[in-house]
């Protein structure tokens, strides 16, 4: 297909986005072409600004602009720490509105096939943080798959000597789902984690 040069460049750029193929890229490009110039400039500026102004908090590793919204919030419980795999997991937990403690982002999980071991997850930083800042309870919220579980097991062993309470986020049936379609592992974990009513 013959595209004008600038359009081809735009489509190629959108194709770099995760989950975006040529058709979606073309649709996005035509959407932009149909927008007023000011709106296109605002979108482009927002992208550049986000790239320039956002960075990872040197303490907790979540996304921060100037100062970390979680570490600097005096209203949060500074004795409670939740360990997550990725910065986006922080946003997901925030969306629940239930958690009011601090975070620590690992930026990955143990994955020997990808060459990711404990050193790559900067766990020394985590241990020092817990030892030096009066954290009393740690919640491990890594993904409920083999990598996440193995990472959680490793963390539990690592944090044991620090005399903090360590727990793993609960597993169970998704809200709104039918028990009929639950797999055996989810069901057995849901039974293990049942609550008295």
């Amino acid at each position, binding site marked *: 297909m013959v595209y004008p040069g600038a359009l081809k460049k735009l489509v190629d750029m959108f194709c770099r986005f995760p989950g975006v193929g040529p058709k979606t890229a073309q649709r996005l490009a035509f959407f932009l072409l149909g927008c007023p110039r000011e709106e296109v400039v605002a979108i482009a500026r927002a992208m550049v600004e986000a790239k320039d102004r956002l960075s990872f908090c040197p303490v907790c590793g979540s996304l921060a602009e100037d100062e970390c919204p979680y570490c600097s919030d005096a209203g949060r419980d500074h004795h409670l720490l939740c360990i997550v795999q990725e910065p986006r997991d922080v946003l997901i937990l925030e969306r629940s509105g239930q958690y009011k403690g601090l975070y620590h982002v690992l930026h990955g999980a143990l994955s*020997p*096939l990808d060459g990711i071991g404990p050193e790559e997850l900067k766990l020394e930083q985590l241990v020092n943080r817990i030892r030096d800042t009066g954290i009393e309870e740690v919640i491990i919220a890594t993904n409920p*798959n*083999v990598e996440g579980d193995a990472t959680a097991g490793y963390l539990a*062993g690592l944090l044991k000597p620090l005399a903090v309470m360590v727990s793993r986020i609960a597993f169970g049936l998704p809200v*709104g789902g039918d028990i009929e379609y639950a*797999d055996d*592992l989810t069901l057995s974990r849901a039974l293990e984690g049942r609550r008295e009513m």
Partner: protein
Amino acid sequence: MKEKLFKAEGLVLRTRVLGEADRLITLLTREEGKFEAVARGARRVKSKLAAGVDLFTHGRYTFHRGKTWPIITGQDTIERFNWFRENPDLYAYGLYFSELTDRLISGEEPCPEIFDHLLEAWSLFGEDVDRFLLSRSFELKLAHAAGYSPHLVSCINCGEHHVTAFSPRQGGMLCSRCRTADAINIDRGTLALIRRLVEAPLSQVGLLRPLSNQKKELATVSAGFLTYYLDLGEIKSRLFLKDS
């Protein structure tokens, strides 16, 4: 022409994120050899496939042949090897076995012998097994099943039966006259141990009691054989093994 729908009994060797919510699964199947298949939506919380396509799962899978990869349309778990997710050290061993299998098998040729070895090894990790010996035995059996067994009975060059050293590059034993610079001296006990590890079932590995020098020689021979003769290069997960 291959059928659009097919079934296979498989072991999940590897999973990778694909697109927004899918996973690309590397499966070793008894019937169709090794191939990659897509588990659509497997990253979603409500996915009924998610647990069945996680690493170290033995299951029965149904597929629909897609344009690029087969699509997993159904799954029944036969066995789940939970010790790999509960113990980080075992997790590293499990991944090492998967990586080795993945690297050594290149295509969709049925390889039931390798399938059975891997399945047995996954089970044995749930017992109090010598992980070092199990790993070396698995490496040698895998190489044997893939047609690359080390030549151990006589000198690989001249056929002389009195052999003293192992050459990783040539993949076999050498006599004192044919010995090359890369060859590693190994004693008769180590040679007997290697033969036993190739021949005996994986389940009998626990009966062997090698001396520490024999374990050292075995480790050198095995690492050299995998790196040079099989040309596997760097096996990332090997760096994470304890006692290797």
